[in-house]
């Protein structure tokens, strides 16, 4: 147990991305990272996601999380937030939609919680 994170379990709705998570989810994180940060891979990912999943050997659960852009599910599974948000970038989806998704709220409801909803 990392002493710097002692007490973290008492903080709800928070999932520290530590090395245990990182080792377990290396495959899906590497897949998303290489499909989104490498411009040369983006067209094939957008055109044929299923083929890319297959070649990367992702599990059915992993494929489904990506297919559905299930933001909350990805975070629970252990996808790193900064890796995840880059697929949204490719889709032209703003982060506000991801934020609402992770809270399992509608975008409209989430925006109501913000001081200046226009500043997104």
């Amino acid at each position, binding site marked *: 147990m990392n002493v710097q*994170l002692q007490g973290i379990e008492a903080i709800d709705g928070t999932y520290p991305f530590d090395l245990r998570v990182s080792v377990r989810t290396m495959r899906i*994180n590497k897949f998303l990272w290489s499909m989104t940060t490498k411009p040369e891979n983006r067209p094939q990912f957008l055109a044929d996601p299923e083929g890319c999943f297959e070649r990367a050997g992702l599990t059915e659960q992993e494929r489904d999380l990506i297919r559905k852009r299930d933001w909350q599910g990805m975070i629970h599974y252990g996808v790193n937030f900064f890796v995840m948000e880059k697929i949204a970038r490719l889709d032209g989806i703003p*982060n506000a939609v991801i934020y609402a998704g992770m809270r399992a709220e509608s975008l409209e409801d989430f925006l109501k919680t913000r*001081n200046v909803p226009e500043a997104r």
Partner: protein
Amino acid sequence: MARVVGGIGTSHVPTIGVAYDRGKQDDPAWKPLFDGYRPVARWLAEKKPDVLVFFYNDHATSFFFDFYPTFAIGVSPSFAIADEGAGPRNLPPLKGHSELAIHITESLVNDEFDMTVFQDRPLDHGCNSPLSLMWPHDPDWPGAIVPIAINVLQFPLPTARRCFKLGQAVRRAVDSFPDDISVAFVGTGGLSHQVHGERTGFNDTDWDMRFLELIEKDPAQLCEMRHADYIRRGGAEGLEEIMWLAMRGALAPKITKVHQNYYLPFTTAMTVAVFEEQEAGTPPAAGRNAEAVS
């Protein structure tokens, strides 16, 4: 000998850069943010630092978890602007300062900081989003940067105290650089925000104000805090605040805040503050391996 002109703490939210690029300077939703950066730009125009030593973090853009450093320093003569999925921002490449960066690296490694050294890696919004509001860049940037990346993504992260000590060690290196150049330190990230999990959207302005007070007057208290404390007080991604401690460690024990702006419109408490040293040239610690804060 290199001279230190002061330090800047600033958020590095990507939307700042996007709003800037879309010309939202007078949009009521963004004006309070942009107005707050004008005095910073004026301060830089007046102090004219040749180099900004930039404590920032990469956001799984140029660094991936298959090879992840605790501290990394960029020694290239130039750094591309990263493409984070929506194409790179229309900014000139950032100029590096190889000689200073190499001098700092040699000093840090001999001082028992286990740096990773990078070349040819694009810099993401952790660097370029606040920079574009503070430094004019048409047709080119007025100076160079030395980027020093701090792991705030994959636990274990460096402790708050270690970040402060890194800043102290960087200052010792800058003080021993033989050329007559001027340097400012920039710490980026925060303040309170959380952008993952059901706790997304968390903020705490009371904590933000307390942090701004402590970073100026009592960084020792911030060095004592554990990562879990930062997450509780400022949100999981608010933990980026430890990068301000590196900037703080590089400055003299007594500093004066000459400017501050705070604006919390959406998910991140967007903040910028400028600090000057009360006694110019005071080194931040007597010797090597000195304790973080006495």
